[in-house]
Each structure stands twice: as C-alpha cells, then as structure tokens.
C-alpha cells in the first residue's frame, strides 16, 4: 500500500489540475464572446417588456449577481467562492428555485442511471470482444458487423428505437419520466417498482451502445495479445488453454480500462442526450430545459457538475487501474 503513494499522489495532483482547468474554462468560455453576457441575458429575458426601468433593474441585479461590472480576476474569485458554497444563484427558468436545488434533484437520477449502465455495457462488451477474438469463425463474423453497427448508432438513436419498439408499439414499458406521473417519491413498493420500470429503456439504450464500441476495442486488443510470443510459448509449454485465455484477457483488458477512463466523457455526453429522449429527470433533461429557457446560471452550473462528475469517474478509474496493473506496483518497488 505504501509503495503506491507516489502513483496516487501523482494522479490526485493531476485530478486537481484538471478540476482547476475545468473551472477556468467554465468561467472564461462564455465570457470570451464579444459583448456583455449579462446584457445578452437581459435582452433575451426582456423580450416583449416595454418598461425600461424594469429592464434596467433586471440588468443591475444580474450584473451584481455575476459581478460583470468588476475586473476579470475579481469576478473569478467571486465565482469560485460562490461555487465552493454551492451558491449558483437563482434559476431563470424555474424561479424561485435555486440552481443548486434544481441540480440536487436531478444529479442522483443521472448517477444511478449512467454508472451502472456504462459499467454493465463495458463488462458485457469486453467479454463478447474477447470471445470473438478467441473463437474467431462464425461467432466473430456475426458479432463484429453487429458491434460496428451498434457503436455507429448514437445513444439517442438507440433510445428512440427502443422507445418506439417497447414503449409505443408493444406498450411493455413507459415512455417517459423517471417514475409514474401519479406518484410522489417515497419508499413504497409501488414507487420503487414504477422507478424500476421507467429505468429499463434508458438503461438498455446506454448499455447496448456501450457494448458495441467496447467489443470492437477488446477484440483488437485480444487479437494482438493472442499473437504475442508468450502465448505461443505457453502453448508450447503445455499450459492449459483456459489459463492462457486468463492471461490474455488480463493483459488485453488493461488498455481497455485506460480507454474507459479516456472515453468516459464522450459516453456520459451521449447518455445525457439519451436521457432527453425519455424525459428522464436527470442532468440531460435539466440541461435541455435550461437551454430552452435561456437559463444561463443553470446551464453553467450543469455543465460544471457534468465535468466534475466525469473527472471524478476518471480519477476513480485511474486509481483502480493502479491496483490492477502489476507493472505499476513493480515500478513503485524500485
């Protein structure tokens, strides 16, 4: 455990750096554009408002909230302090709810949907990919085109297909929402069942899309490994096939874990759009309502939360990788 310290500290430092970079990007990008962001917000908000003093009042209120009338650096400090206190201001489109309140309600939906879905998709995809590489022949010939096609289908496309097939045509599963519209969230059996039923379509649309991409990647990795010298040597030594497959799988899965760490951002973004198709009450749908309502504080906070979520997931995968890859342990022992 002690030997790992350098690795973990390094990864943690990198996590902090990316976090700071994410804050800076989230802060600067909207402000890089020509024009005053607050003026733009107010002009969108004040469309159809003829009362000039009212517009002026709105302008001053938001200028104060975002501190746009102060120097850039001071604005950034103000922004950091607000974020640290979880204070993102009021939501424009869902006034008088605060942004933090809106996000608190939707964040958990996204986490319980996306994490299991991506993990299940990753495991199934890698198993299928390894089997395709090992068995070759008919299994490979059938699985590969299907995987390429499935990974070509964007998550929202898969979502629409599943929605129409199972929700509209067969009427097996509900088409939208996170639970029945006639229920109030509680811990009763009826509510949990309703949640479970609403969970199925978004879950499987993410899983199916993930499987395709992972299977292709794992197949290539496993083919490389199967042709490696150590495999031939082990065969020559008379080691059982089962055991060799175990070695191959372990070696091939390591790059796949790194791949997952790198691709998790793309996966989460795809899954967010899939949420929208089902009006699932997560961050994706929140983002959509925020954009439709030109709700700048909510958009900014949602994108920040998504980024932080991805960074944390990335960090967690890197830590896990440290335990799984024996080379890292060996390097620490030096």
């Amino acid at each position, binding site marked *: 455990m002690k030997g790992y310290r350098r690795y973990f500290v390094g990864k943690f430092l*990198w996590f902090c750096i990316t976090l700071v970079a994410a804050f800076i990007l989230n802060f600067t990008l909207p402000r890089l*554009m020509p024009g005053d962001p607050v003026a*733009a917000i107010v002009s969108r908000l004040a469309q159809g408002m003829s009362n000039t003093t009212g517009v002026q009042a709105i302008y001053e209120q938001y200028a104060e909230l975002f501190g746009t009338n102060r120097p850039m650096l001071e604005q950034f400090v103000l922004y950091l302090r607000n974020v640290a206190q979880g204070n993102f201001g009021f939501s424009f489109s869902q006034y008088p709810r605060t942004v933090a309140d809106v996000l608190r309600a939707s964040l958990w939906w996204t986490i319980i949907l996306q994490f299991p879905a991506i993990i299940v998709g990753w495991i199934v995809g890698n198993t299928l990919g390894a089997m395709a590489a090992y068995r*070759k022949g008919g299994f490979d010939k059938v699985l590969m085109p299907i995987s390429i096609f499935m990974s070509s*289908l964007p998550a929202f496309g898969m979502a*629409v297909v599943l*929605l129409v097939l199972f929700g509209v045509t067969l009427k097996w599963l509900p088409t939208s929402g996170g639970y029945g519209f006639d229920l109030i969230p509680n811990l009763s059996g009826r509510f949990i069942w309703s949640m479970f039923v609403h969970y199925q379509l978004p879950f499987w649309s993410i899983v199916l899309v993930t499987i395709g991409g992972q299977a292709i990647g794992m197949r290539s990795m496993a083919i490389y490994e199967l042709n490696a010298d150590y495999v031939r040597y082990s065969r020559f030594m008379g080691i059982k096939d089962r055991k060799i497959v175990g070695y191959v799988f372990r070696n091939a899965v390591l790059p796949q874990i790194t791949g997952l760490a790198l691709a998790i*951002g793309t996966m989460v973004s795809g899954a967010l759009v899939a949420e929208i198709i089902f009006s699932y009450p997560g961050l994706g749908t929140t983002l959509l309502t925020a954009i439709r309502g030109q709700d700048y504080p909510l958009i900014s906070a949602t994108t920040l939360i998504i980024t932080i979520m991805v960074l944390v997931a990335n960090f967690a995968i890197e830590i896990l990788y440290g335990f799984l890859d024996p080379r890292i342990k060996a390097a620490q022992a030096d």
Partner: protein
Amino acid sequence: MRHLTRQVFNSGKFVVGFSIFVGILLIVIIYPILFPYPPLEIIGQGNFFPPGLYVNVYDSIFTSHYILNLDDATANRIASKLDSEDRLAIQKWLTASGFPESEIDIENTAQLLDQWTNNFDPTKRFPGMTNADRNYFIRLNNSLKGLLSTEGAIIAVENPETASLEEAGVVAQNDYIVVNEVPNVRLLPLGTDNFGRDVLTELVAATKVSLIIGFVAGSIATLIGLILGLLSGYIGGQVDDVIMFFTNLLTVIPSFVLLILISFSIGQEQRGAFTIAVVIGLTSWVWTTRAVRSQVISLRNRDHVNLSKLSGHSISYIIIADILPYIASYVVMALILQISSAILAEAGLSILGLGPRTTEVATLGLMLNWALIYQAPILGYWWAFYPVIIVIALIAFSLNLMNTGLDQVFNPALRE
C-alpha cells in the same frame, strides 16, 4: 500506390463501407437534380401527413371517369370506414341479443354487416343497457345504412348569381380515375414533417449539410491534431510537455461540455451550420494529436530519418518527406473517425437546441430535434424520425466500416 489501393479494395469491410458512403453521396448529389424542390418549402397545411401518393381531389373529379365493376370494392370501402371500436360495439350488441358468440368474426366485415342488418332491432333492450347506449347503437345503425347505400355522391357548384347549389356531376361508387391523367399528383414517400415540409427532400438536403459539417469539422480537427502531434512528437522537450499538457487536459474534460458552452455563448443569431462545424472541429482534435504524436515518436529515431538529419535537411523537409508518408494512413483513418463523430456531435447539439439556426438549413440533428419537440415518436409518426436515425447510423456505420477495413490493411496483426 496502386498495390496499396488494390489491397484496400480487397478488404471486404472497406468495400461495403465505401459503397454505402458513395451511395449516400450519389443520392445527395443526384436527387436535387431530378427533383428540384426547395427543401424547406412548407407544402402541407398541418403537420405529419403520412407517406404516400397525394392525388388532387378537385382535379380527379373533373378528369375522365372509368367504370370498373369490382366485386370487393364495397367490402373494402366499408372495411376502411368501420373502425375497430364500431366492430366491438356490434359484437357486444349481437352477443347481448343472444347471438352465438362463436359465429361472430369481427375481422370478417361482410359477414359482420350481414349479421348486423339481419338482427338489429332498435326497440330491443337488454338488462344493464342505458338510454345512451341505445342511442349509440341507433346512430351506429344509421351510419352503417349510409355506408351500405349504392348511390353516388353529387358534386354541386355554387351559382354566383343565385347563390344556390347546382349539380355539376355525379361520382358513382364504381367510378375510377387513372392517376396518370390527373394533372396534380405529388409523391411524398416519407410524408411531411411538423411544419408540413416534404420529409424526403428535406432529408436529402439535411444529409448534405450534415456531411459538409462533418467534413469541415473533421478537416479542422485533423489539421490541428496533425500539426500539434507532429510538433510535439518530433520536436519533443518543452514543446511536447506543453502540448501534451493541454491535450491530456482536454481529453478528460468532455468536449461536449465545451461545445455546449461555446454554442450557447455564440447565441442563436450567429449560429450557422458552418460556425457549428468550426466549433466542433476546434473542440475535437485531441485524439488525432495523441495518435499522431505516438506514431511520430516511434518514427523519430528510425534510420532513414537520422540519415536525412545527417544530410542537413531542414525540419520541414524531414517532416514532409520522411515522416508524413509513414503516418498518412493513420491520418486518413483519424479523419474518417472525426467526420463520423462530428456528424454525431452536431446531432446531439441540435437535440439540446444548440444546433445551427433553424430558418436557413436543415441538418439531420435539427430534423430529429423538431420531431422530438413535436412528440413524433410517441404519436407514432415514424416517417419523421426513423429515416433520419437510419441515415445518421448508415453514415456513421459506413465510415466506421471503412476505418476498420483500413485498420486491417495497415495493421497486419488484425488481419484474419
């Protein structure tokens, strides 16, 4: 070069992907020449007209009528008018009146109507039957009587002087027209969308715009990735450190989030299809940079590069003559993947409502966005969204197949 081309075209995956892609390209080029309809013209009054051949009713009244005596015409007409609710009601009445249930087949229209006309009696009442029910059955009976009549429909024209209706013609039940003779016929193979626009024409135009977006974004991303990858891989040292720092940073920060922030900040008015393409290109170069860099690093110390250095060639010469040819295949593969992911990124962005401005062009993402806003999937208007998803999937599928095929040609380890 010829050998290489032959090798590439020997790969089954590449050929299939290439054929699909070229097919889509050909349709996009040829369709507007054959059918020069303006793609965003609103032709339908109302939304989501079903796919089919639209024949002008007014014209068809005044084109010559031909009498065909077809046996099943009446049955077909009644079958199309009698919906399943009416059929169930008939069944209910018949069984309630003591008719044997096993003899009723609600799918057999002729038999059902026969049973109904022979047995229905408006004065009959059953236990549990309300007055409203009774009236409903009487109304049903009257409407069925109308269906069963054999007289034609009279076409009346208003006389402008007396304001009275005068008979202009009779359409008999066995009158037919030939579609070719009707002057106004429009085929809408995919119906219309929520604005009443021809979906097929719009889809072809949208595919073109989306392909252009993909190509522009992919080229920008590949160019930036290539330059940064070459610099960082070949020069190394601090340049490498700085470039890799930003590359690693942007790899973990999801580019989709950056895309959302930038597109939102640009504002609706400034967001054309081209701007979106540029923004997508500017946020998606990291993968190419990584791939190019690792290739360049493995090439950097090869003998032929060292020889070139010793001969005193300049850095730009070495990069162009000794390094680029070796990474060309990777760059092409990266470009193919960038095009497909850019098309998907545009679609995702449009679904969020941050796509290109809506009034000028259609893109695949925008079509999907409108179909979703108007609840087309739930209402069952499949023609408004399935074709779009199929086109998106086909484009991405063909590009991915081409990429996999190329990968197998250039990476001998992956060959079967």
